[in-house]
């Protein structure tokens, strides 16, 4: 074996330049998360009445909010991918369907969509069932949590489609042309060249959507889903203490969104390679 010295990647040399030290390993914004959690804990322990009572009362609401956020986000990723690929499809039918979906859904406020799915959709289904004389459909009843997840997924799926589409389109055409000229099929070049690059482009907006979705999930409280917001309102309606209730609810949302923001930042960092 010859003793040729190994070439160091240029990146590691740069790391020793002044002002270009490796960034602190622990993300300093975790401090904010700790601060907000600390504030919540202080309120709950120092002023147990009413803060601990509020926390106990809204506990199941937090679980419902988390369940709705996680499940609709997971479904949104899938729906968005289908929608995004549809928007890019050369087949005019697929393209048309995907564009129609995005344009219609994006044009209706989420609150209106949720109310429609819960209060109007079941009646429509029941009437169709009666018309077809199928009792299973005629007796269709909406499950509030399921309806909420479906409503949010349909709405956020449209936004997500556009994010995926923009991500894939942001990769220069030369990339796919190069991949094709190396003998890859269209699918292979998508799988090995385009998508891996597009994922990095879309990660920040996708993470952003996750946090926006968590916050928008409070809208499901109008369709009688007992989420964090509704539990807060129920508590306030009995104890008449809006300041404490909404401070607590705001802090709880903040804890959840800040935690998610850190997770998103961590994933972004993990997937950040040199271009």
């Amino acid at each position, binding site marked *: 074996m010859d003793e040729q010295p190994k070439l160091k990647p240029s990146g590691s040399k740069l790391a020793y330049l002044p002002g270009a030290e490796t960034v602190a390993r622990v993300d300093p914004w975790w401090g904010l998360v700790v601060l907000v959690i600390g504030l919540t804990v202080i309120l709950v322990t120092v002023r147990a009445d009413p803060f601990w009572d509020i926390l106990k009362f809204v506990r199941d609401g937090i679980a419902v909010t988390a369940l709705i956020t996680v499940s609709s986000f997971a479904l949104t990723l899938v729906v968005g991918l289908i929608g995004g690929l549809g928007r890019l499809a050369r087949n005019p039918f697929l393209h048309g369907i995907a564009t129609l979906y995005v344009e219609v859904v994006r044009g209706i406020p989420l609150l209106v969509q949720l109310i429609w799915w819960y209060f109007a959709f079941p009646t429509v289904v029941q009437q169709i069932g009666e018309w077809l004389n199928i009792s299973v459909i005629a*007796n269709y009843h909406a499950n509030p949590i399921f309806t909420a997840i479906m409503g949010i997924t349909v709405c956020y799926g449209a936004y997500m489609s556009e994010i995926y589409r923009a991500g894939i389109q942001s990769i220069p055409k030369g990339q796919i042309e190069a991949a094709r000229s190396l003998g890859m099929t269209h699918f292979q070049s998508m799988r090995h060249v385009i998508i891996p690059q597009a994922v990095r482009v879309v990660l920040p907006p996708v993470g952003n959507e996750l946090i926006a979705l968590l916050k928008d999930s409070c809208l499901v409280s109008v369709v*009688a889903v007992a989420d964090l917001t509704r539990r807060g*309102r*129920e508590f*306030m309606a009995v104890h*008449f203490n809006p300041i404490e209730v909404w401070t607590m609810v705001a802090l709880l949302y903040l804890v959840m969104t800040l935690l998610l923001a850190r997770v998103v930042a961590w994933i972004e960092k993990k997937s950040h390679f040199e271009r």
Partner: protein
Amino acid sequence: MKKLFGYVLIGLALVSLVLPGCTPETTEVVVIATDATWPPFEYVDEQTKEIVGFDIDLMTAVAEKAGIEIEFKNVAWDPLLAGMALCQYDAAISAMTITEERAEQWLFSDPYFYAGQIVIVHIDNTEIASKYDLSGKVVGAQIGTTGSFEVENIGGATLKTYDDIGLAFQDLMNKQIDAIIADNPLALGYIGENPDKLKTAGDVFTDENYGIAVCKDNPDLVEKINDGLEAVKAEGLIEELVEKWL
């Protein structure tokens, strides 16, 4: 220069935040909160978009007798309750039952109407005949109403709260909940409009009195309202309004 302009703008914005707080009140308009989703006591008329109803007519007559100028403000029920506790409104008339918990937070006028809670079910429902059959059922009520407190007192019943009672009735007509507990006159109004879909189950099972809520810092206003209320009662207005609205 640009920086200066920025500071001036921020300054102006701050001043504008403070200013409305110190405008002197020249005419004393009493702000009356109401949750106009509770027909026939208070609701928004389809044609005129005005708040109308039993309570609105009554309050207008009372104000006239008491010599106060009033202005109605349409607010949702749970913010109305919280707002009364914090004196954000001078008074509220909204088919509000006088309860001990509420009386600790604000003042009440003399009672002006007698009502009670009743169970409403879908017309196809044969299982539920009274509130004693509600165990294991999903029962709807408006958030923070005496109806919702009654549901909580029924062992085994699951309470579902709605922003306004209309949504609860919609859900019941879609058969997505088993029953509703609400005030008797309101329930009869909804059943009157949807006789093919709704019916009552059992009799009225609570005794409740409606009162006008008044902010606790304003005992004078309670007196004025009580005097006005007495005067209109003496004229037989309550009976007239019952005739007109119920």
